[in-house]
Each structure stands twice: as C-alpha cells, then as structure tokens.
C-alpha cells in the first residue's frame, strides 16, 4: 500500500470524529462553567446540600476512573470511602488533628487499603474481580462492626469539631467550609481529567479495550491495573474523609455495601466512561434522596425504578447520551 490506496471495503459508519482540538476547547469551557457554578452556588442553595453532592460526586469520580477508564468494576468502593471517613473522624475526634491532617490520614489509609485489596483483586477478571472487591469490602464492614472502640459501633463517631484549617480558617462556618470543599472538588476533577488524558491514561484505556492485545504489545497490564486501582481508592478515600469532616460524622453506613452501590448507581445514571457523567449522576441521586425524603423507604423504590429506566432507555447515562448527540466525548 505504498501507493497510498486503502482497503476496498465499505465506507459506512465512518463519520464519528473522536477527540480533536474542538473537543479540548469544549472541555475547557465546561471546566470553567463548573468553576463558576461552584462560585455562585452557595448564594442560591444551602451550602451543606451542595457539599454533600460534591462529596458523592468525588466518590463517583473515583469509581468511574476505575470502571470507565480501567475497565474494572469494583463492588467494594465503600471500603475506601468508609475507612477514610472513620480514620479522619477518629483523628479529628480523639487526636484533635487539624482538618487537613485528618483528611490526609484518611486518604493515606484508603490508599494503603486500596494497594492491598487491589493487589489481590486484579488477579481475577470480570465478575470474579467484582466479587473479590465486594468480599474484601464486607470484611472491612464486619471489622468496623466488631471494633466499637475505634468506630463507635452502631453510633459511629460524631459530634467532634471541624476545627481550623491550617490553624486559621474556622470551618465551623458552613460558608468557609464550602469554599474548602469546592476547591478540593475542583482540584480532584482536574486531577482525574489529567490522569485520563495522560500517557498512563492512554495505556489504561487500551487495556480496558483489549487486554490480550495490550499484553502482546509488551505491557505488564497488572501494574497498570494496580496503579489505577490505587488512584481510584485514594480518591474514594478523599471523598469519605471530606464527608466525615463536613457532617462531623462517620458511621457504618459509610462502609456498608449499599454505599458501593450508590457509586455504581450515580456513575451509570450520569454516564460511565465520561468525565462529567459521575458529577451529574451524583447531583441527580443526592437531590432525589433529599427532595423525596418525605417518601421514607419509598425513596429506594423510586431510585431503583430510575435505575431500571436509565439502563433500559439510555444505557450511556445522561452525559453519555448527550455526548452521542453532539458527537463529542464529554
């Protein structure tokens, strides 16, 4: 084919452009829009509500990093979220750690836990991988249940003070805390974007698409899988740790398997494998839980129904469907 002719086959379905410079500009604009929305939001909406959304959005971003870009479906992300929540709450309550150190220690523990669990889980694929992550997360749940001196058992750890960030900013004020949480969220979002669009991210996407081929090109795929697993666990830990400081609360709910389910739900509703999908998904789910709280136990039923409708009608999620519509990755 030195003479430049290509294979004489059909030309159908060849019009979808992938990433190009226009896509990059669109992404920059969306990032700026999100930043502006974060700046304006506390003047219109109750800050604690937005902070709750942002914590779950972080959690969903972490889950989606692993599933959407690493192709690994974890059913145990509650372990990292919940354990980081406990550790930072415990640090703030018992050791009187300043909030930044409490959060960092939570993230550190989640990272270590992710490294240990990831090393075990990546040895298997598909449903077996998911089952191992779930089983390990259940072990963390029962550990939390059995060690009330650390976790506070059924009561959890609560009623501690949020403290002063860097010793100066009083986080007892919701408004102050909001700016901190918004900054953490924005930085994490940019971080995830960078990971996905890094040389490492390119390899992860290749492994997700076709693992045997990546092996045959000479990649040691397990090292990439473990790295993205640990990055995802660390980010899930950050979500849990920030949540603990915001609500001054860490309970068994945070490590329960249904918390892992929330991450799956939010990501699927928003759009798996999209940058912005998990954020939209978490706002939708948290808003729904908030505004439908009057329905009591029926919230779960409504949530389940939405999930089913989502999977049946637009499998790519809200943002995934939108991306198809405008023919650009989001």
């Amino acid at each position, binding site marked *: *084919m*030195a003479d*430049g*002719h*290509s*294979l*004489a*086959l*059909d030309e159908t*379905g*060849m019009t*979808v*452009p*992938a*990433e*190009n410079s226009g896509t990059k500009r669109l992404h920059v604009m969306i990032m700026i829009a999100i930043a502006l929305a974060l700046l304006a939001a506390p003047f219109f909406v109750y800050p604690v509500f937005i902070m709750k959304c942002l914590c779950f959005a972080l959690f969903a971003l972490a889950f989606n990093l692993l599933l959407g870009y690493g192709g690994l479906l974890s059913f145990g992300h509650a372990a990292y979220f919940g354990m980081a929540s406990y550790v930072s709450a415990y640090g703030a309550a018992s050791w009187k750690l300043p909030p930044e150190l409490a959060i960092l220690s939570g993230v550190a523990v989640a990272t270590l836990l992710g490294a240990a669990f990831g090393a075990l889980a990546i040895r298997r694929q598909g449903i077996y991988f998911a089952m191992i992550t779930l089983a390990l997360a259940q072990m963390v749940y029962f550990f939390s249940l059995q060690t009330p001196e650390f976790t506070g058992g059924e009561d959890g750890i609560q009623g501690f003070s949020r403290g002063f960030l860097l010793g100066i900013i009083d986080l007892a004020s919701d408004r102050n805390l909001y700016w901190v949480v918004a900054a953490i969220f924005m930085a994490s979002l940019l971080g995830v974007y*960078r*990971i996905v*669009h*890094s*040389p*490492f*991210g*390119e*390899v992860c*996407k*290749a492994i*997700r*698409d*076709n693992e*045997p*081929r*990546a*092996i*045959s*090109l*000479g*990649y*040691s*795929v397990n*090292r*990439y899988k473990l*790295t993205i697993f640990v*990055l995802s666990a660390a980010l899930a830990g950050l979500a849990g740790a920030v949540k603990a400081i915001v609500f001054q609360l860490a309970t068994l709910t945070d490590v329960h398997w249904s918390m892992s389910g929330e991450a799956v739900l939010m990501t699927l509703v928003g759009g798996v494998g999209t940058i912005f999908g998990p954020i939209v998904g978490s706002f939708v789910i948290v808003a729904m839980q908030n505004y439908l709280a009057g329905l009591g136990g029926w919230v779960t039923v409504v949530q389940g129904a939405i999930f089913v409708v989502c999977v049946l009608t637009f499998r790519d999620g809200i943002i995934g469907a939108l991306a198809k519509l405008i023919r650009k990755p989001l």
Partner: protein
Amino acid sequence: MKPDIVLLASGLTKQFGGFTAVGGVDLQVRRGSIHALIGPNGAGKTTCFNLLTKFLIPTSGTILFNGKDITRDNASEIARKGLVRSFQISAVFPKLTVQNNVRIALQRKGGDSFDFWRSSSVLRKLDGQVEQLLEAVGLSSFRHILAGELSYGRKRALEIATTLALDPEMMLLDEPMAGMGREDVERIASLIRRVSAGRTILMVEHNLSVVSSLCDRITVLARGKVLAEGDYATVSGNPLVVEAYIGTGGSHGH
C-alpha cells in the same frame, strides 16, 4: 552473531486434562523466512501458536528465541524481546482512534507510560512515526476515526501497523486472512511480503493459495503432531498431507 534459527521449539507438548492438544512438536524457524503452520481443523495450530507466544504454558518442552530459553517468560516479556503476535479475531483497541492504536505501541518504548500526572500531549513527539506507519498500510485518511468503526479488512491492516510499530524481530500472525474477501487477501498478502523484509514471520493460515505464494517453508500439523515439513511443492506432494486434509472432511485450500 545471532543464530540462523531464530525460533526453536523442541518437544513442545500441551495437555488439557487427559487430552493432548499438542504432542511433542519440534519446530525450527529460520531467520528472515516466512514460515507457515497449516493443518486441518483441530490439528493444534492455534494451541501451538499460543504456546509459542506464551499465552499458554506448555506442559513440557522448551522454546528458544535467538538461542535464549524463553519457556518460562510471560507474554509481555517476550513482546519486549521482539517476538510479537497478532490475533485471529481482529485485535484493535476499538474505543481509541486509529492514530492512538498505533501510538500505544510506540509509547511503550518511551518509558513514560506510568506518568499519570503529565498531559498526553507529550506523546505528540510520536506523531511522525505514527503517520509513517499509517501511510504504510493505507490508513492515513482514517487517523481520527475510532478503530471500532473501521471495516474488517482495515482493522487487520491497522493491527499490522500496530505490530510493526514495535519493529519486532519476529512477527507471529494468527490467520491474517481469516474472513476476508479475495481483494483484501491479496492486499494483506502483499503487505506481509513487504513488511517481511529484515524480519521473520511465522503464520497460521487456512488459505493454501496464500501459503503457496507467500511462504518459504511450511509445517503441517495433524492431531497435535508434525506431519510434514518443507516448501510448498514438497508438502503438497506428500501423500500423508493429502490424506490428512481429505480424511478430515475436505480441503481448506482454494
């Protein structure tokens, strides 16, 4: 001085439970040759191929590549040593662009594949090489298309470009013509002939007319054993080979 035999397998055996898929196969692939592995369905070609590329662990036997024992290496290690395989079912990364499919192969040698904190724009330095490789297989105008949207024949061409990106000393092609129309078969055959310059190729292939025109040496497998070996004339004249093909339900040639 590198040995004349680039790939040497001796006594290669693979058992699945009680079933012997490959039993004591000896194979010598000469440097710079295009060597074909043929045989009727169930002869153990694909198993043999997977053993040579380390996607299966042999029950017994040894494999030497350039005189070095690679029997215990894993699949990604041998790829880094210059022994790169293709797959029977077209092996592209469907959700990456055509351009990025090739770039992934080039990227590994750069040593920055774990850099998650850098922008992938550092990979632009590879664009020139990517372009050359796409040019070579006639896919330049498809560079921004997602690989999953390419037609079957173009996926195979892309796969060859990706394999070539590693500049492997030896390429192992698993049925490169499977499922192709005649026109594509000719194009891929001429592509293989062109890329064989300066390297060794071992291919599993059903299409006997392709094998006859393309390959220097042919090894015929039947029931997990080597039945015959030699150039096309020798092999096709061998009564055992004729019998093996007819005896298992007809010719696979055209």
